[in-house]
């Protein structure tokens, strides 16, 4: 048994770590409600920065771009990723792990490298095929970095699948496609939905890759924030950042609750 006293330093250390991690964000959140321009002196609560934010066309446009890119990219990447995962799963075993490693490299690759390389690709193919950087290239870039996350989230569900299930469904009268939608999809749905949520979060979050692939006419929210800081720092930035933080936080909480509920269900099942 350990002494109660000995836990105190550990707890203080833990608290310090969390303060260090979250203090900047909390300061940001608090000062987004400040009534004056100052970012160091608290002078009273107000929603004026939020108001200003929602009257700013550039911000609203960027918000619209961000949300539409994220939703579209998440949906398309989820479809691609799910089928890719099924394909990888059905590969011969000796090919599976090299292909999965290839899938993981983009995840660990520095965003700046991915961003620059995608930018070069789009510019080069754009000059040949006659298109420029814009919403479409932004969307393509987002799909490409989202797909690996979806694959990673669907794969474990496929592995849990009874490998006779598709056979059984076909045996009972399903065509392959019917078996896929009636039996496989309901079973791997939790993985698909989680993959979609992660992809969506990643898209909302992304700055670097978007910066390189969106071109000059299209801006996402994080790009707008970045450009604001380069001109003049106003609490408006605090407000936008706070909104993004809260939004991503909610998404992460949803993802975590979902996976813990699924774990519980899995454990409740008798072997």
């Amino acid at each position, binding site marked *: 048994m350990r002494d109660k006293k000995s836990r105190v330093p550990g707890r203080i250390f833990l608290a310090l770590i969390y303060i260090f991690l979250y203090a900047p964000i909390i300061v940001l959140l608090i000062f987004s409600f400040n009534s004056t321009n100052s970012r160091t002196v608290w002078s009273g609560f107000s929603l004026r920065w939020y108001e200003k934010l929602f009257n700013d066309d550039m911000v609203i446009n960027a918000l619209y771009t961000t949300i539409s890119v994220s939703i579209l990219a998440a949906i398309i990447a989820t479809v691609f990723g799910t089928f890719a995962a099924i394909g990888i799963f059905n590969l011969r075993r000796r090919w599976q792990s090299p292909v999965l490693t290839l899938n993981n490299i983009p995840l660990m690759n520095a965003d700046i490298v991915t961003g620059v390389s995608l930018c070069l690709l789009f510019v080069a193919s754009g000059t040949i095929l006659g298109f420029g950087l814009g919403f479409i290239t932004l969307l393509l870039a987002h799909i490409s970095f989202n797909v690996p996350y979806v694959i990673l989230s669907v794969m474990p569900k496929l592995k849990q699948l009874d*490998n*006779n*299930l598709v056979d*059984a469904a076909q*045996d*009972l*009268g*399903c065509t392959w496609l019917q078996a896929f939608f*009636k*039996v496989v999809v309901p079973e791997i749905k939790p993985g698909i939905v989680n993959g979609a949520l992660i992809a969506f979060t990643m898209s909302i979050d992304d700055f670097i890759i978007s910066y390189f692939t969106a071109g000059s006419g299209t801006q996402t929210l994080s790009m707008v924030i970045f450009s604001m800081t380069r001109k003049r720092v106003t609490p408006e930035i605090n407000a936008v950042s706070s909104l993004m933080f809260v939004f991503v936080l909610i998404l992460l909480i949803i993802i975590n609750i979902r996976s813990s509920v699924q774990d519980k269900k899995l454990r409740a099942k008798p072997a």
Partner: protein
Amino acid sequence: MSKELIRLSDCTMAFDDEIVLDNLNLYIKDEEFLTLLGPSGCGKTTTLRIIGGFLVPTKGDVFFDGVRINDVPPHKRKVNTVFQKYALVPHLNVYDNVAFGLRLVKPKIDKKEIDQRVREMLEVVSLKGFEHRAVSSLSGGQQQRVAIARALVNRPKVLLLDEPLGALDLRLRKDMQQELKRIQQQMGITFIYVTHDQEEALAMSDTVVVMNEGIIQQIGSPEDIYNEPKNAFVADFIGESNIVDGIMRADGVVEIFGKKFECLDSGFEKDEPVDVVIRPEDVDIVDTRAGQLIGLVTSVTFKGMNYDIIVDFKGFKWLIQTSDFCPAGSKIGIHIVPDGFHVMKKSKYSGLYGDYSSYSDEYEELSDADEAEEGSEDEK
């Protein structure tokens, strides 16, 4: 019972140049209970999957009721399968699992009829009242019965069963054997049953097909297979056997260990070398003076109904089952009646089986462990 329903003709199956089935010829009669029996990797599951339509043979044809069905996909065959680990749909309850196949039939079956057939079938497998239970909440035996009901409700001509009792404990397995036999007779359809458990095969089947290394070793009734094994492999795989080298001196006379014995077999050439099978229960223990052969007891295991004793005859160890206690180290004489010998032609399995030098109780457990590992290989 006599009509031929399924025929496999010259079927060869190879995965990556590895031959799993080698020129298999087999026909299956209507309303028959046929068992494919063999050790893991012998090709029995592959044969079943070819009949089910999940595999297309690399060479050869599959006929159903006289029609070639090589290219007919599983969902169009009048065959249903009960899978090894049941493969029930986890997100559906018992009722919906059983109704799964009926709801896919075109033209659509009317709801009332589906309901009636599902309830009828649940009654057949003694699962009345379980309709709304989640399949994950059922025991292994109950899940097994859902799987059987789900397959049978479609009124297939043939039910394929892939080691359906493998995951159940011994007691339940015995009960389910009886249950399956009853269901088969009640429904009057063909069952093709795959197992590596020879006892199960003998207890349930009309016809047993013993397979090894992708080749059919013997086809026959359980009695034939047990009493008249064709080669050393079959003799060893079905029950316990002492297999010794012998020479056929004349019709009805076989020589082992340099001594002539009277037997009932004939049709061999004079002085032809043969394999001789003596079942452990066919050996009588007598006084050393009256014995045809004299051996030394090297170990004794109490088995409840009898003792398993290992007896050394000139360096060759026999297994004998007897109700008389003979202590280890004692000398005994044995007597075998002519009916107790079974003479077989030499085969490539000669000399591989039938010696009990390394006999131990762990034997069976070891072979079971092999089976579990092999299961996955069988599928791909």
